[in-house]
C-alpha cells in the first residue's frame, strides 16, 4: 500500500474495499482498465436475473424461468468495462477561506477518490480549477500513481478566480474529455447559472458527472457575518456593506445549496455535501457510498 502525507494510511486501508459506482458506461473504455458491471444484454459470464421492464431486449428473457414462475425475468451478464476517471479539485481563492482546512480537505478527498479508482485499476487524471492554462496531471493506472498524484496535489495553493463555465469549456477541449467519470470537488461558490451550463456541457461529452461540495461550518451558518461590516469577496475583491440578520444570511446559503442540489437531482448527477466539522472517514466510508459515489 502506498504511503501518503495527506491521508491517514489507516483510512487508505479501509478504502481498499471500496469501488467507484458506475451507473452508465458509454465511452472511455478505450485506454485500459477494467470494471465489472452487471449489464443487461449478452456476455460470456452470467451474473443474475432482473425483472423485465418494457424496453428490455426480449431476447434476454429467460423463458424457462417464465414457464416455472409465470413471471418475466431477463438474464444479466457480468461485463468488464474500462473507465477513465477525471478528478477535478477547485483551486480558486475561495477554497482558501474561511480556513485553509477547506482546501486541505478537498485535496484529501481528491486523493482518496484517486486511490479508490487506481485500486480498481481504472485510469485516473487529476486537474485543478484555476485561472489561466489548464493544469492537470498525466493519466495514472496503477497504485504507484497515488504518490505522483499526491505530489501534484501538494504543489498547489488556492489563488485566483475563474468562472466554472469558462474553465469547463477550456478543459473539455484541451483535455479532450469524452466519456468516463468526472468527480468535481469544490465549494461551488459559483453563479449557479454558469455552473449548470458547465455541467450540461460535461454531460454532453458523455461524462458521468459527480459533485462534492466542501463547506466550512462558518459558511454553512454565517452568523458571524451578521455583526455587520464590509464583506470582501476573496476572488473578485468586490465589497458590500452587509447589514442583514443571521437568519437572512443563513437562508441565502441554504437556497444556493438547494438550487445546486435540485439541479443534480433533476439531471441524475450524484451530489454530496461535506462539512469540515465532519471527519473525512465519515465522508468516505458512509456519505459517499450512500450518495452513490462508491460501492
Amino acid at each position: 500500500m502506498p504511503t501518503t502525507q495527506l491521508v491517514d494510511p489507516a483510512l487508505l486501508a479501509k478504502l481498499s474495499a471500496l469501488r467507484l459506482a458506475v451507473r452508465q458506461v458509454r465511452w472511455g473504455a478505450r485506454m485500459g482498465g477494467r470494471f465489472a458491471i452487471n449489464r443487461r444484454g449478452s456476455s460470456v459470464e452470467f451474473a443474475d436475473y432482473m425483472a423485465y421492464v418494457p424496453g428490455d431486449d426480449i431476447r434476454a428473457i429467460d423463458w424457462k424461468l417464465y414457464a416455472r414462475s409465470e413471471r418475466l425475468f431477463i438474464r444479466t451478464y457480468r461485463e468488464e468495462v474500462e473507465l477513465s476517471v477525471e478528478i477535478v479539485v477547485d483551486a480558486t481563492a475561495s477554497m482558501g477561506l474561511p480556513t485553509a482546512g477547506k482546501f486541505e480537505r478537498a485535496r484529501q478527498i481528491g486523493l482518496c477518490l484517486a486511490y479508490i479508482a487506481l485500486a480498481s485499476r481504472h485510469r485516473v487524471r487529476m486537474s485543478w480549477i484555476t485561472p489561466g492554462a489548464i493544469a492537470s496531471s498525466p493519466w495514472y493506472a496503477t497504485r504507484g500513481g497515488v504518490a505522483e498524484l499526491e505530489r501534484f496535489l501538494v504543489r498547489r495553493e488556492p489563488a485566483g478566480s475563474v468562472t466554472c463555465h469558462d474553465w469547463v469549456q477550456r478543459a473539455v477541449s484541451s483535455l479532450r474529455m469524452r466519456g468516463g467519470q468526472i468527480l468535481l470537488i469544490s465549494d461551488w461558490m459559483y453563479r449557479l447559472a454558469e455552473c449548470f451550463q458547465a455541467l450540461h456541457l460535461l454531460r454532453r461529452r458523455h461524462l458521468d458527472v459527480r459533485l462534492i461540495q466542501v463547506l466550512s461550518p462558518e459558511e454553512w451558518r454565517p452568523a458571524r457575518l451578521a455583526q455587520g461590516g464590509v464583506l470582501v469577496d476573496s476572488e473578485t475583491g468586490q465589497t458590500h456593506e452587509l447589514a442583514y440578520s443571521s437568519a437572512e444570511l443563513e437562508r441565502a446559503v441554504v437556497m444556493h445549496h438547494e438550487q445546486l442540489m435540485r439541479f443534480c437531482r433533476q439531471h441524475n448527477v450524484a451530489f454530496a455535501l461535506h462539512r469540515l466539522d465532519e471527519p473525512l472517514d465519515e465522508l468516505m466510508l458512509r456519505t459517499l457510498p450512500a450518495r452513490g459515489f462508491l460501492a
Partner: protein
Amino acid sequence: MHLLSPWALCWLGSLPVLVWLWRFAAVKRQTRVASLVPFEALLRRPPTRRTRPPLSLLFWLQALVCALAAWALAEPVVVGRTTHTTLIVLDTSASMGAVRRGASAFDRAKRALTAHVASKPLTERVYVVTSAPVQVLTPTPLSDPGDIRAAVDSVAVSDLAGQLSVAAKVGEAVIGGPPDATVVFTDEPAPADATRSVTFRSVGGAAPNVAIVGLESDEPLCLPADAVKSTAASSTSDAAPGREGAATVRVTVQNFAPQSQPVTVEVARDRRRLARQRVTVEAGARTLVAVPLPRAGPGQYDVRLDAPHDALAVDNHAVVSLGGAGRRAVRVVTHDQEFLRAVGRWLDACPGLSWSASDAGEADDLLVTDDPAAASRASASTLLISDGSAAAVPAPPKVVYWLVDSTHLLGRYLEPIQPVPMALPPSQAPGPLSGVPVIWGIADGERIPLLLAAEEQGRRLVTLRLDPRASPDAVPIIVVFFNSVQWLARASESTTTGTPLLVGPLAPGEVRVERPDGRIILVQHPGGVLRYDRTDRAGVHRIRSAHGVIERTVNFLDPAESNTIAVGSTWDAAPTTARAAAARTPVRQPLSPWLIIVMLVLVVVEWVYYARRRRREPR
C-alpha cells in the same frame, strides 16, 4: 453613595461612547469571505441600517465593566450590623530595635502583624496604634490586609519609651469604645492581669546589651573674666573656635547582660577621636566612666560606646555640649532685699554669670527665687531657695549634719557626711516637695531633705530648703549653690527623647527645626519661648530663626528601654468593660473595593474570551 457623584455621572457617559465604538467598529469591519455569490439575492436590495447595539458577549462584558466603574465611583456603601473590631497596638519603643539572631524585634513584630491581618476575616475592621509616640495609624478602620500592611510599613522604631496601655486607651478613644479584641505586638512579656480580650504577641527575648544611661560634662562654670569675654565673642559665630579648656565627660554605662563585658567609651568631635576609656562592667552593674578632655573647645562632642555583646544601637551614642554657652544669664526674683543681697554676692563671685533682678519677663538661662509661685510659673530651669518659713528675720544657725548623695552632680565636692552651720527648715514643708533628695539634714534626731532635684518636661528644678540670709558665708552652702546653678544651666543644652525642647524666647515668625533624621519642621512661632515636643529622635536639633541658629541636644538615656534582659511590662490597662452602645452603631461597609475586584475579574474573563475567539476565527 451619591447618585449625583460627578465622577460617576462622567463615567456613565462612557456607555454611549462604548456603544458608538462598537457600532463604528461593526460598520468598518472588513470580513473576507470565500464568495459573495450565495448572498447575491440579498445584495440586490440596499442594506438596512442597523439600529440596535451588536449582540456580542464582549460588548455586554465591556458595558458591564463600565457600569460597575460608574457604580464604584458613586462610592456605594452597605449599611449593616457592626463588624468585629480589632485594635492592634504596635510597640514602636526604642527597645524594639534590639537585634537578636539577625533580626530586630520590630521586624519580627511587623511580620507577625502582617501574618495576623492576612489570616483575619475580611469583615473584621482593624485599627492600628503605635506606642512610641502614641499615634493612630488608621484613623478610619481598615479591612483590607494590603492597606493595613501599607500603613504598618511606613512605621519605624522611635527613640522613645512607650506605654502600651496608653496606646490602647488612645485606640479605644478613637474607636469610641472598647474593641472586640486587642492584639499587642511587643517585646514585653504578657502581663498576668491581661483580660481575655487582649492578646499579647511577644516577639522579644533576652539579649545582652550595654547602654549609656547617663551623661554629664564637668567643666568650670566660673571662668576668669577675660576668658568669658573671649568665649562670649566667639560664641556669636558658629565657625569661630572658642577658648579651649580642660573638661571631663562623665558617662554612666550600664551592662544589661548576664556576664561582665569590656566596654570602650570614646569621645569624638567632627569624627575625630579625642579620648577613649576602656572599662570592664560587671553583669547588671552601672559604672561611671570619666573621660578627661585636656583641651575642649566649645561645641558638640559625640560620645560612643562599644561592647562585644550589644543588642541595641540607639543607646550607644550621645552628644554632649561643652563650653559653648559663654556667659549665662541668671534672673533673681525676690521681694526680700536680704535674700537678694546674699544671693547677689554669690553670683557676683562668678564672672561667667550675668545676673539681674526683676519680676517680669522670661529668664534667659535660669531663675533663682525664694518664691514658690514664681518657681512653678517659670518655663526656665529654676533654683528655689526657701526654707518655707517666710520669716522676716532669719533663724539663728546651728550645726546640721548633711548626708550627701555623692553620685549626683549636685553633691560634688561635698563630703558624704559633714557639719554645716545653717538654720534648719521646718520638718514639715508648707507644700508638696518635688524631686529626688540629694542632701538630707540631720538635727535633733530628724532627717529633713534639704536639696531636691527634679527634671520634667525639659525643665529642671532644684529646691534648696535653707535660708541663705542665715549663713551666707558657709562654704558647703555656696558649693551646693554653684553645683545647682551648673546642673540647672546644663538643662538648657541637653534633654532626653520625649521631653520637649524649650528654646528662646524667640521673635515671632517662621522657625525651622532641623531634626537629626533629616526632616525639617516649619513652625509659625507667635513669639516667646518655643516649645518643640516631637523629640522622638536622639541627636542634635537645630532651630533656625531670625535670631540665628540654636543647637539643642536630645539624648536617648533610658535604662528601662535599654534593659533588654529583664523587660518590664508597661501594660496596666483596666479590664475591658462591656462594649459601649456607641460602638455598636451600624457600620457603613464600602462596596467600591468589591466592585473593583469584580471589574478586574470581568476584564480578565473578557480578555480570555476574546483571545479564544481570536484563535477560533479565521484570519
